[in-house]
């Protein structure tokens, strides 16, 4: 039995031509199927569970427009005329600002293909313009992720951060491998003082062999040292874990346990199913993929049901099949108490949720703070609601995931609603997946084309 349940467009993995694609339901799986007139047919697994896939649509966000469209064209061909264009249906929630394509590592798996070929190293003036691009498009409450390559290889990183804060960027997170922060706590302190709000810290597993596979080096001790240093300077951390059935799918539960033990320094774990763009070791087959439902089932299994599939909800910020999130309080006995559940239904006010999710967590605690009677905060009665609230404020954990799209599984439907955008030096904002997607020959539509022009 196979049934077409949707139509979209995709790209040819060989030649990057935009080609029509259909979503097919078959044996309770969903596949994306597409044919390039020149290079033939491709079929790739994108979801397990047809009912689940369809039911998530109730979480769809109310579309919103970017404040400005850098691309002004009558006839748009998505995704070739990107930047954003008038057909885009979501504004920017997180803008990614890459400050280098260099790195102090050379991982076998790297979406940015860092440390190879040309050198992209924008000067402060260019970076100022990139911040401005985000400010112009978003307006207020701008959230920036400084990324790369590895941003910490730039000695002027604190200046870059301070510049952003001086330009009234509200939130800056730093995407880092943490190696320099393990070695130089002073540098970490300086970044914090300059205004870094949290680290988006790659942490792929709890054993050395995982790092041998993802980074080509045993980085376990270094990673642990980074967390220790973050604890010392009180820097919040989200652990970012690439997930692959060939590498670490069996460690998910242990990673969540590790996170729990390191709350409140660790604020969350973000699982990133390995997507095949940039530098990656193989041409993927379906068995090399972790689709979102696979990940959630593993989380339920490996946390022994402390977190269940139903505790995960789309953020209603981007396309409903792009992300999923749960929030829990870590209780006194170390168990997780989830605050999110699908039975609660979609958020009431999806129309403004995009701007809210940027600072969702801080908003939540601000709300709690405002509702609390500060006078009786001192010594809450054990087992009381008072104590629960006190604990919830400092001991919560967010578990989230966003499976990026690669040239095989990309759908323009998802790209059009994307809210995570890479800023280009020429004033554009490009959906992160799209920015990075490359053909089997290494050709990109945007990354190397754009950064190559601004390289040294």
């Amino acid at each position, binding site marked *: 039995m196979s049934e077409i349940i949707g139509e979209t467009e995709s790209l040819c993995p060989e030649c990057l031509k935009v080609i029509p694609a259909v979503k097919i339901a078959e044996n309770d799986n969903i596949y994306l199927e597409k044919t390039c007139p020149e290079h033939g047919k491709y079929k790739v697994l994108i979801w397990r569970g047809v009912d689940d896939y369809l039911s998530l649509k109730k979480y769809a966000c109310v579309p919103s427009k970017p404040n400005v469209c850098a691309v002004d064209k009558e006839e748009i061909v998505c995704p070739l005329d990107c930047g954003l264009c008038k057909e885009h249906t979501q504004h920017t929630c997180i803008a990614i600002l890459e400050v280098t394509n260099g790195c102090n590592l050379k991982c076998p798996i790297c979406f940015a293909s860092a440390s190879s070929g040309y050198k992209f190293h924008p000067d402060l003036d260019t970076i100022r313009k990139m911040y401005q691009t985000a400010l112009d498009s978003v307006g207020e409450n701008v959230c920036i992720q400084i990324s790369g390559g590895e941003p910490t290889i730039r000695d002027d990183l604190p200046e870059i951060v301070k510049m952003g804060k001086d330009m009234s960027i509200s939130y800056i997170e730093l995407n880092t491998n943490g190696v320099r922060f393990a070695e130089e706590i002073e540098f970490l302190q300086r970044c914090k003082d300059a205004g870094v709000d949290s680290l988006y810290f790659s942490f792929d597993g709890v054993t050395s062999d995982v790092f041998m596979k993802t980074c080509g080096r045993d980085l376990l001790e270094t990673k642990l040292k980074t967390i220790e240093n973050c604890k010392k300077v009180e820097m919040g951390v989200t652990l970012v874990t690439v997930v692959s059935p060939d590498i670490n799918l069996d460690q998910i539960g242990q990673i969540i346990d590790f996170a729990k033990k390191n709350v409140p320094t660790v604020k969350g774990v973000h699982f990133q199913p390995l997507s095949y763009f940039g530098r990656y070791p193989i041409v993927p087959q379906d068995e090399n993929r972790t689709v979102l439902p696979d990940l959630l089932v593993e989380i339920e299994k490996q946390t022994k049901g402390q977190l269940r599939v139903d505790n995960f909800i789309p*953020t209603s910020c981007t396309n409903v099949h792009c992300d999923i*999130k749960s929030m829990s309080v870590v209780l006194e006995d170390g168990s997780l108490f989830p605050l999110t559940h699908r039975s609660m239904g979609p958020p009431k006010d999806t129309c403004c949720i995009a701007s809210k999710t940027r600072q969702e967590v801080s908003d939540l605690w601000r709300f709690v703070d405002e509702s609390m009677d500060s006078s009786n905060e001192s010594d809450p009665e054990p087992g*009381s609601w008072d104590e629960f609230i006190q604990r919830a404020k400092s001991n919560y954990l967010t578990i989230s995931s966003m499976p990026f799209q690669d040239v095989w599984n990309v759908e323009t439907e998802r790209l059009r609603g994307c809210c995570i955008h890479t800023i280009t030096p020429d004033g554009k904002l490009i959906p992160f997946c799209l920015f990075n997607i490359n053909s089997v020959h290494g050709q990109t539509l945007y990354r190397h084309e754009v950064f190559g022009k601004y390289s040294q």
Partner: protein
Amino acid sequence: MDVKFSDSVKELIGERGLKIDDVIDIINTAESSNRKLNDGSKNLAKKRIGEVTIYAVYDDNGNVETAYSHRMVLGEIQKTTDEPDPTNWVCVSCNEKAVIGTVLMTYMGVTRSGPAVVCEKCGDAWIEEYLATKTIAAAEGLFEKKKA
């Protein structure tokens, strides 16, 4: 009883997402059943309506002073101490002085305790305004306000 609201009380009730008609209903029910607290000048009545418990504070002439609510479900009173803190409230149906006690409150499957005005004779419990609008609102907010 002719229930009356000043403009500012009406506004407060609206802000708290409550309905005037529900508040009137609570007061009428309390007056006919005598299930309420009284401190000599004002009354505290409560009623579960749908998913919320709503409270009304009003004087003997029916002037409503305030109204508030919580979603949590009140459970058993936990052992009060040998000498519980007294209150000015009297449980009208039992003619018994109410005291400050501890009750279990359940929300979304979680049960925790909190302070309440309790009548040790009939075992009924009333949540005071400060708690309903602060701690309990915050706890409910954790579950309710942000879902994603």
